[in-house]
């Protein structure tokens, strides 16, 4: 068969028309299939949903399992399965009034007995000693069907915050476990019950007997899309309604900007997680001098990083914690870049010469370990810092590693400079202070941001032991020590970026990065 111009043009036009029709048709089909369904992206399968294990996506557990109290805006504690609580005996006794009329998704009644069964699954166990309430747990008394009393050996700092965590504190139906008491089915008291879950998606429908107000749409599908670009493409194609969340399906600032330009609603929350640079004086001798640490910190242009790399979505950080968190301490402005002052400090510290400074014949070279998998966007930030350090005579070598190596390298302190993320609400400030800065606390996941057994540990311990009005001034001493010694260099407060389709109305960012923000959403069909 010979192809002339006419048949070619006819064929081409037909093919283009078919492709367009197919695209439009698939959109219609998706929209029809999605009526009454909120489709959210998750970056990996939801995993083992056992509230006492540490594998699942927090936000998926949040759909099904509820805590005694909820963490509200600004750290406000709000009632959930407990309607009232009273702390007595200087923080050693907690009286709880449980909500009546609550049932688990399998019909089991939520009362003092099932509450006790749940709390005894983790309180007082070694595995959960990272939580003060578990570490100091003494006994649990059932007063009546809806009243229980918890007794602790020591006053528990941030007790109510701890009780709002996603795990291990949330409540599982006692009937859902196997004969050996091990986790079986994910059955909680929450508004969503799991219908199915596999490696491609988790599907949830209303828990009809829910005590609170149910969302207006009946179904929620969490679709597994590991690749960030595919998630953005799926949102554009109308296959998804909601993408975002640091631990759920992160969007980069660049993706946020592109989606905004394409007419999607992009919601940016200032965020309560801080990107902090750690110094490792144990490995890099130069960093033992506070002047060198200060020079490095002053040499970084936080404003430019926020403006260019985060497209203005992030705020430069001058503190370990953002003001959005309780007990975040006095809020200082982020240090402005001052290359001349940084160079002068290095001169004063004895590091001279150019282009790379040296002292006693040793060049001022530092190794910055980054892992873009663990801290999104960190490699580009590292490249900017590398160029800025070169200007003040520091040879910064970037070593980029994969997620797993980053954890081992940080634990084994195989870095001179490294990036850390604070845990954010509801864990902070105490979670990060203890987990990342207290030398006696064993942290085998992230490693340590900064430790000093002689100077810093007593300050942290004093802050942990403080109660009431004493908490603010004692924890401020920790912040002051970190600041006065330039022990860490906070860089930016990482923003929480969400994008949603036009179907979604009333969306607001979740209070913590561990919640699924389904609550206020209305779906327009």
């Amino acid at each position: 068969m010979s192809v002339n111009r006419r048949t070619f043009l006819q064929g081409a036009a037909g093919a283009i028309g078919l492709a367009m029709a197919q695209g439009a048709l698939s959109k219609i089909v998706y929209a029809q299939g999605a009526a009454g369904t909120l489709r959210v992206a998750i970056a990996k399968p939801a995993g083992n949903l056992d509230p006492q294990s540490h594998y699942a996506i927090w936000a998926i557990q949040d759909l099904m399992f509820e805590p005694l109290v909820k963490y509200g805006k600004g750290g406000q504690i709000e009632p959930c399965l407990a309607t009232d609580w009273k702390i007595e005996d200087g923080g050693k006794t907690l009286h709880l009034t449980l909500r009546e009329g609550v049932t688990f998704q399998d019909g089991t009644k939520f009362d003092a007995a099932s509450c006790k069964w749940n709390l005894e699954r983790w309180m007082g166990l070694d595995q959960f000693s990272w939580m003060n309430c578990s570490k100091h747990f003494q006994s649990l008394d059932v007063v009546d069907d809806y009243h229980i009393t918890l007794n602790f050996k020591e006053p528990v700092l941030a007790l109510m915050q701890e009780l709002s965590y996603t795990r291990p504190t949330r409540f599982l139906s006692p009937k859902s476990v196997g004969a050996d008491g091990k986790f079986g089915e994910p059955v909680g008291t929450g508004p969503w019950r799991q219908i199915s879950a596999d490696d491609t998606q988790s599907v949830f429908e209303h828990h009809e007997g829910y005590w609170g107000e149910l969302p207006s749409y009946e179904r929620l599908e969490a679709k597994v899309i590991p690749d960030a670009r595919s998630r953005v493409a799926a949102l554009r194609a109308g296959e998804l309604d909601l993408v975002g969340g640091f631990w759920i399906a992160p969007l980069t600032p660049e993706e946020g900007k592109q989606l905004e330009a394409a007419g999607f609603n992009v919601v940016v929350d200032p965020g309560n997680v801080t990107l902090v640079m750690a110094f490792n004086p144990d490995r890099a001798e130069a960093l033992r001098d506070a002047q060198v640490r200060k020079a490095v910190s002053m040499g970084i242009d936080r404003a430019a990083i926020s403006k260019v790399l985060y497209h203005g979505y992030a705020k430069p950080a001058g503190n370990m914690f953002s003001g959005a968190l309780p007990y975040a301490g006095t809020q200082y402005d982020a240090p402005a870049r001052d290359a001349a002052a940084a160079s002068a400090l290095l001169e004063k510290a004895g590091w001279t010469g150019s282009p790379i400074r040296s002292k006693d014949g040793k060049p001022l070279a530092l190794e910055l370990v980054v892992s873009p998998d663990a801290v999104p966007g960190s490699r580009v930030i590292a490249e900017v810092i590398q160029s800025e350090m070169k200007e003040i005579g520091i040879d910064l070598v970037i070593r980029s590693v994969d997620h797993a190596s980053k954890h081992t390298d940080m634990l084994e302190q195989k870095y001179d400079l490294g990036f850390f993320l604070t845990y954010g609400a509801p864990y902070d400030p105490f979670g990060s202070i203890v987990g990342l800065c207290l030398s006696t606390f064993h942290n085998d996941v992230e490693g340590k941001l900064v430790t000093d057994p002689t100077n810093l540990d007593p300050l942290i311990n004093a802050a942990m032991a403080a109660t009431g009005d004493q908490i603010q001034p004692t924890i401020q001493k920790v912040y002051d020590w970190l600041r006065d010694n330039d022990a860490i260099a906070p860089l930016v407060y990482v923003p929480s970026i969400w994008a949603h389709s036009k179907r979604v109305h009333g969306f607001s960012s979740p209070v913590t990065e561990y919640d699924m923000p389904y609550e206020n959403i209305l779906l327009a069909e």
Partner: protein
Amino acid sequence: MNMLNPILARLKKMPRAALITIGLFVALGTFAPWLAPQDPSAQNLLEAGLGPMAAHWLGTDHLGRDTFSRLIIAANTSLVSVGSVLGIAMTIGIVLGTIAGYHRGWVDDLLMRIVDVGLSVPSLIISLAVIGIVGPGYWTMVLALALAWWPMSGRISRAVAVSIMSKPHIEALRVLGASPWRIYFGHLLPGTIGSVMVYATADAGTAALAVATLSFLGLGIQPPTPEWGQMLVDALPYLESDPRQVLLPGLALTAAVIGFNTLGESIALNRIPKPLTRRMLAARRLEVASWDKENSDA
């Protein structure tokens, strides 16, 4: 099929285009530090993502660095790394291949089984394993790729060496009592190197791609050294807002790989007898004439 003819005809002329591409690549790579108009690592965040203009001929990247300078310096990075990878791989391959081809017997069996193992595992997996153990870095990457690459040249060298060893003139040398060293260094090695070099040209494209792949994965060349694969991965987030940043390193890499492949193929295919030029004819006549002289001397 008629429609394809002009394209096919154009493709036939490719070797010349390939030669120009590779010539340009080698020239740029060699003289890159003198040719790059600006410091490839100098950042200016205020000028990030600008399009082509007088100050930056091909625009700037996401950190405000001059794209043109980075592309040129990246040619140097690729040239040096590909050269080193092939150099190391060919050396190991040719040495082991010729030893196997010369010695035969159990030495041949042993070496070729090692080569088999090397060939049975995909080269990228070997490289990833080596980098995983030693840690990422420029020379680790070169070493890792060389380790993954040598079995191929080892197998080719052995085949060439076996065919040379079975040629009559080697037989004659043995009969005349030539030492193994003389046969190996004087006859076997030069012959093998010549043939294997042809394959090396064709392999250079694949090696350049492997270097780019490892850098793309963040396991090869570390910042701030510009490298095409790394430029690609750095620009990927901007694929939609500024496709130029992705297209330029992508095109450079594609041109280099296609160039090397076409060149290698045409060199390999061109090893057919060519019509003799007048000068070659004269040289042969002279040589043949000298044989007479030798005979009369004898």
